[in-house]
């Protein structure tokens, strides 16, 4: 998929050839720094990229059907009913004017022809599903009366109202207290198992992703750097960027100094030529500046986009095993 933002300063190539596949029932993590294209990838999957952004090319295959080619009416049916999304900030993701019950009932009634009473029952069962205390009373509460964690639970309930098969959670815990974070993650994991949903978790928190996912897609500057199972990725990262990313995470077992990644994420109006990571990569060669590395198979279920992954794989210092 390719999504550009056509701004006055130039074309921002936010997502530039990102491609990955997800199996049913899987939980996949989308990792990368701020500005690496994680959120735009999610919005592209849902087809709700707003101007000046535009999905330039690519396809989103959902059970073999390209949902970007559906007309407006059909694609609205996909959203919410097939793919749900939980947003980053629970404080602004609920409409302050409507009570929790009204907001849940609205979604329920957008997607199915239920009577008001049936919709209310459904909303109540959704609140029970996300384990909110006193759901009957919360139904009548307004968002400003709820805590951040509770609001995020309501937001999750809303995303689940259409009984989607895929749930995209865009940094669902970034704005929450650490203790609440754990609860919300636990809830998401439980729901995924219970409902057999596919979960796409977007985050920059390598700790969360390690706990929550089975497979990881590492994005860098709008491209896929590496795809691997969570276990493999943490043990033996193949892409130098992934390695650097893991190196920048504090670990309680190893009292080593944290190593920040030198430099900044590039300006996506004029991204670097060749491999987009080459200006920050200690192993970059002339080839990296000139040629875009293909995303090639690198072992069991692994993909990596690096010219030198084979040589680097022999270097011992690049593993955490």
């Amino acid at each position, binding site marked *: 998929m390719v999504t550009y933002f056509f701004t006055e300063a130039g074309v921002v190539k936010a997502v530039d050839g990102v491609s990955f596949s997800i199996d049913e029932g899987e939980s996949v993590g989308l990792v990368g720094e701020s500005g690496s294209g994680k959120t735009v990838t999610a*919005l592209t999957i*849902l087809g*709700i990229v*707003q*101007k*000046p952004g535009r999905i330039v090319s690519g396809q989103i295959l959902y059970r073999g059907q390209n949902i970007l080619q559906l007309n407006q009416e059909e694609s*609205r*049916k*996909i*959203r*919410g*009913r097939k793919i*749900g*999304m939980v*947003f*980053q*900030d*629970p*404080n*602004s*993701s*609920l*409409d*302050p*004017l409507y*009570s929790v019950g009204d907001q849940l009932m*609205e*979604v329920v009634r*957008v*997607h199915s022809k239920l009577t008001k009473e049936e919709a209310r029952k459904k909303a109540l069962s959704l609140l029970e599903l996300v384990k909110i205390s*006193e759901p*009957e*009373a*919360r139904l*009548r*509460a*307004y968002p*400003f*009366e*709820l*805590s*951040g964690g*509770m*609001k995020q639970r309501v*937001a999750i309930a*809303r*995303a689940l*109202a*259409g009984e989607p098969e895929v749930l995209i959670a865009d940094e669902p815990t970034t704005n929450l*207290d650490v203790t609440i974070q754990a609860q919300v993650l636990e809830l998401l994991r439980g729901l995924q198992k219970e409902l057999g949903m596919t979960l796409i978790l977007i985050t920059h928190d390598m700790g969360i992703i390690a706990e929550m996912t089975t497979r990881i897609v590492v994005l860098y500057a709008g491209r896929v750097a590496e795809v691997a199972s969570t276990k493999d990725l943490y043990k033996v990262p193949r892409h130098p960027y992934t390695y650097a990313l893991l190196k920048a995470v504090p670990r309680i077992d190893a009292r080593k100094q944290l190593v920040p990644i030198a430099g900044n994420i590039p300006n996506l109006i004029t991204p670097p030529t060749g491999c987009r990571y080459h200006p920050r990569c200690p192993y970059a060669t002339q080839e990296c500046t000139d040629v875009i590395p293909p995303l090639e198979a690198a072992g069991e279920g692994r993909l990596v986009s690096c010219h030198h992954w084979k040589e680097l794989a022999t270097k011992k210092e690049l593993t955490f095993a």
Partner: protein
Amino acid sequence: MSGQQAPVKPPTRRRSASQWAVAWRRFRRNKAALAGLVIVGFFAFLGVFGSTIAPYPARDPVCFYTGCTSLGPFVNWSHPLGTEPAGYDIYSEILQSAKNDLYVGLGATLISLGIGVSVGALAGYRKGTSAALLLGISQIFFVLPALVIILLFARIFVTLVAVGLGLTLIMLILGLFGWPGIAFVVRGEVIRLRELEFVQAERAIGASNTRILYRHIVPNILSPIIVFATLTIAANILTEVAISFLGFGDPNTATWGLLIQEGFQYPNYWWIAVFPGLAVVFSVLGFNILGDGLSDAFNPRLRE
């Protein structure tokens, strides 16, 4: 709005306080705002029942026949506020005028609201050429001098005035030229809300643009709209007075402006202009302090 500090009410309450209940509670504590509401209520009462209470019909030169012309105020209790040399009873005329002044003030404001909210909401929600075009049109209307155009139209459509539609004409023109202010306010608010996550969340659940705009964005900006509308009513009443005073109004329809203009012609009979003038001052004052009070009541930063 920050979640953690918001006190969670005990769940025993029937229905927890909505934004409106909170605003009303704050409004009730504001003495000036309550006074504004009382004044506006009083004039609304005059608007509805003024013609019934008034002892004489509108534009009826009663004293022309009975010879009680040019009476001062508080002299003869059949004509408590005095009479004009032409025989009109000031007290009756003021009461009869109330509905006409409110008709222009409210009617023009409703027209402006209809156009302004629609144009502003679309100009804010859409992006690209159509939004720029709507904004451009608003700006053109904003710089047009409405009063001059109204005076011009009042002359062009003098036939309408002759058949008694003069007031409606003034109301229509005031409404049709008074909307850009509302459009700007609405546009700004919509642009702010458009990027919030709950709007994105609505998109993510498959809600249509129309639904997002009218069920989620517009209701969220009702408070600035209401405040602006209240202040616009006051401004429209004043403009109508100005038009009548300049002699471009309908001489056959009683309005406060017309009375003031008649008073202006007889400088020795001060009461002809002063009493309708007081009516204008108090009604405009009432709407203005009501508007201010509403704006304070809706302001989330003043939340205690």
